[in-house]
């Protein structure tokens, strides 16, 4: 067995991670500022053509049901609002940010498909419980981002995690703790700190496996249930996938009826396919 890692080992290596486009960092850092100059922002994003194209395709997907097709970032902000557009830009940027690193057994496509499915499901869930849908979407997309941190910074060690998980048929979380001594939740928090995520987002990443902990917040419960639903619906079709433990506290907190869940399953499947086509292209 290899030596165990500490939180500091992860933090030390964060600077070697690929950085997000400058404009996206700016968006993340200004999350609490309402008065950001939209014209300046739209112009900055427009300089990145790939990012703009991806963002606009997301904005025009049925996720938002817009009656008009938006063709510029400025227009997207007009029709969807600043918050939604900001989240779309982040989603488009983050999914392209971590390149395939040499970690045998780690499937980047599979990772993002799961994250996108969780984002779609969390957004639908949020609508049903009248929570901010943009927060839910972004938190769903980023909930497991710590795994990418671990894979990118310690590819060889993470290959051992994957081997351990296969051998013991256990949860990734258990394999990470056994092999590395640190898990993707902690690594995700380190990155959230490093990238200046908002407190809401940090809490959701921290609490998505333990949403019953006092102070975990409602968003953690939404992401937790969305994660479980996505595994149960087998959207990623990973042969040895496992439905994680589902917190009865989080389940009860959402307080949704059976019919609502059946609708939610259908809606999640449809939206997942559409968003995956845009983000994975």
């Amino acid at each position, binding site marked *: 067995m290899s030596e165990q890692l500490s939180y500091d080992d992860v933090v030390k290596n964060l600077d070697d991670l690929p950085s997000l486009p400058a404009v996206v960092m700016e968006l993340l850092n200004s999350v609490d500022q309402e008065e950001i100059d939209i014209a300046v922002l739209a112009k900055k994003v427009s300089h990145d053509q790939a990012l703009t194209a991806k963002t606009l395709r997301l904005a025009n997907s049925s996720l938002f049901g817009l009656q008009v097709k938006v063709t510029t970032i400025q227009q997207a902000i007009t029709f969807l609002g600043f918050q939604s557009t900001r989240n779309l830009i982040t989603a488009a940027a983050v999914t392209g940010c971590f390149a395939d690193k040499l970690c045998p057994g780690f499937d980047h496509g599979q990772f993002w498909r799961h994250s996108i499915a969780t984002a779609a499901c969390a957004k639908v869930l949020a609508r049903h419980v009248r929570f901010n849908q943009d927060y839910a979407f972004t938190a769903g997309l980023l909930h497991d981002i710590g795994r990418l941190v671990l894979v990118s910074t310690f590819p060889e060690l993470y290959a051992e995690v994957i081997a351990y998980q296969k051998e013991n048929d256990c949860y990734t979380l258990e394999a990470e703790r056994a092999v590395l001594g640190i898990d993707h939740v902690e690594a995700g928090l380190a990155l959230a700190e490093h990238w200046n995520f908002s407190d809401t987002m940090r809490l959701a990443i921290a609490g998505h496996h333990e949403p019953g902990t006092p102070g975990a917040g409602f968003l953690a419960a939404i992401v937790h249930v969305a994660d479980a639903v996505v595994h*149960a*619906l087998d959207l990623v079709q990973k042969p040895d996938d496992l*439905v994680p*433990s589902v*917190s*009865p506290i989080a389940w009860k907190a959402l307080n949704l009826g*059976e019919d609502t869940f059946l609708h939610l399953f259908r809606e999640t499947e449809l939206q997942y396919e559409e968003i995956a086509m845009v983000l994975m292209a």
Partner: protein
Amino acid sequence: MTGTYRHLPLAKVEPGMVLSDELLDKHGQVLLPAGAQLTERMLERLHDHGIESLAVVDDTPPDPAQTAAEREAHLARIGVLFRRHDPANGEDSAANTLRKLVTEFRVGKEAA
């Protein structure tokens, strides 16, 4: 909620078939609404619009043997996904409710 449409190349579509989804051209304009019954004349014009394939309502009765096999496959897969959860464990109520709902979603209520 199960697949009740078939995607067919235009050459295989016959007059009398029913369109299952709105048919759009490459500019996003609606050519025909969902539920339209296709005529020979329509099919010729679709060809002129550059349509190569379309989705029609599948009204062939499902093969019972195949349906049963699909059902078994769904149930088996759900069993695999939930292998870490014990249906008899009362503490694991949320996971078991989720399992019941997904089963209902995949194979219908009676099996749940």
